């Protein structure tokens, strides 16, 4: 099932807020998970697993390092679900 970028962004906002306590309002496409949102490496694993469960996609470990920004993650998930 195709996912819209807006839906995925909304889902990621909820997940990052839940896992890392970052207010959803401050989570935007161009934000870097590490530098801007201060999601540490352990919490990033939680974010990835939560995204897999929520969106029904697989995010291989070797891809995770490529997902620097929220926008990278949205694009990956939309493409993976297409």
């Amino acid at each position: 099932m195709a996912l819209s970028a807006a839906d995925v962004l909304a889902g990621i906002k909820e997940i990052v807020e839940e896992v890392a306590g970052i207010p959803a309002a401050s989570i935007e496409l161009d934000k870097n998970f590490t530098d801007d949102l201060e999601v540490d490496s352990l919490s990033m694993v939680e974010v990835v697993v939560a995204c897999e469960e929520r969106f029904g996609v697989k995010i291989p470990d070797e891809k995770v390092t490529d997902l620097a920004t929220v926008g990278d993650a949205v694009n990956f998930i939309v493409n993976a679900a297409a």
Partner: protein
Amino acid sequence: MSQRRVVVTGLGATTPLGGDVASTWAALIAGKSGVRLLTEDWRELLPVHFAARVAIEPADQMERVEMRRLDRSEQFALVASREAWKDAGAPDVDKERLGVVIASGIGGVITLLDQFDNLKEKGARGVSPHTVPMLMPNGPAANVGLELQARAGVHTPVSACASGAEAIGYALEMIRTNRADIIVSGGVEAAIHQLPMAGFAAMKALSTRNDAPERASRPYDADRDGFVLGEGGGVLVLEEYEHAKARGAKIYCELVGQGLSSDGYHIAAPDPDGSGVQRAIKFALANANLSTKDIVHLNAHATSTPAGDVAEANALRLALGKDADHVAVSATKSMTGHLLGGAGAIESVFIVKALQERLAPPTINIENLDPAVTIDVVRDTARSLPSGQIAALNDSFGFGGHNVVLAFATL
């Protein structure tokens, strides 16, 4: 050079009687029980249906996002440490002279078991990346050390139910030997879960008085039938005396010494001769430069087990001799339950408060004093302690035959 003296400048606690030191102490002096029926369905799997949960859940004391990365034992450590640090005036100290020594008897056992459930249900991907930092027994100390940026050393002695007291003794030595000027020390435990409870029940160590949980923890009573598992923790800020004076700190009392020994007798049963306990008391008095005449109060280990209470009482009588007649003995586990690795720490908090308020807490639930107990137990209501310079002891013993005695004195 004279020995560096160590004083107590801050206290923190979260216990079955209250979410901080003030509410815990008020309930303790009022003789309230913190023991309740468990509400979880799994209690039906066990012969014991009750425990002493903390009065205030960590969820009401810290942020949700912070909580989810912390084992319950680590949450207790942070709650108690924050209170203690604030009570000490949140001093601006040299981080390289600041240490943390916080113990736990079992570590993050609830995390370990919950994550094993996740593994079975969802596979390896379902196991939290926070699992290891949450289950490691040094996790409570490490998290407090991280928060305070302590750089003189972060340590976790483990000796079952003596762990909390051993941590405070370790901190005493760190300051005396000039490794640090100020240490956040104590002990925590969070093991109210069906597996550890089933394990203790299998040893016949737990009370099964299911029809009257609040009456179940009854140290020194003739009909005691085991301990009641508690949870929570206590923290003391220990500080080198001149350092505390220089910054104008509020000083509660002095931690004057410790005595350590081991039984070499049995993995879990107390040595009925109590010779190890007697030696620990003797060492503590010598280390503190006190005599038995100076001791007016003692917070006993007294867990409410048939064998342990009498073995300890006999050892106290032998170690203190005739001077035991003027030692008001309190068994506060009658109210808090047994916090395992947190026990020696909350009981040290109680000793510090007892010296400050000149008041020995009561021991509740003694309907018929065991005739084998020949020490002076403070029953039912709190008792005033003498004026002038006074000293008190805190006994803690752990499975494995570990004996720790801490000595505190007014300045």
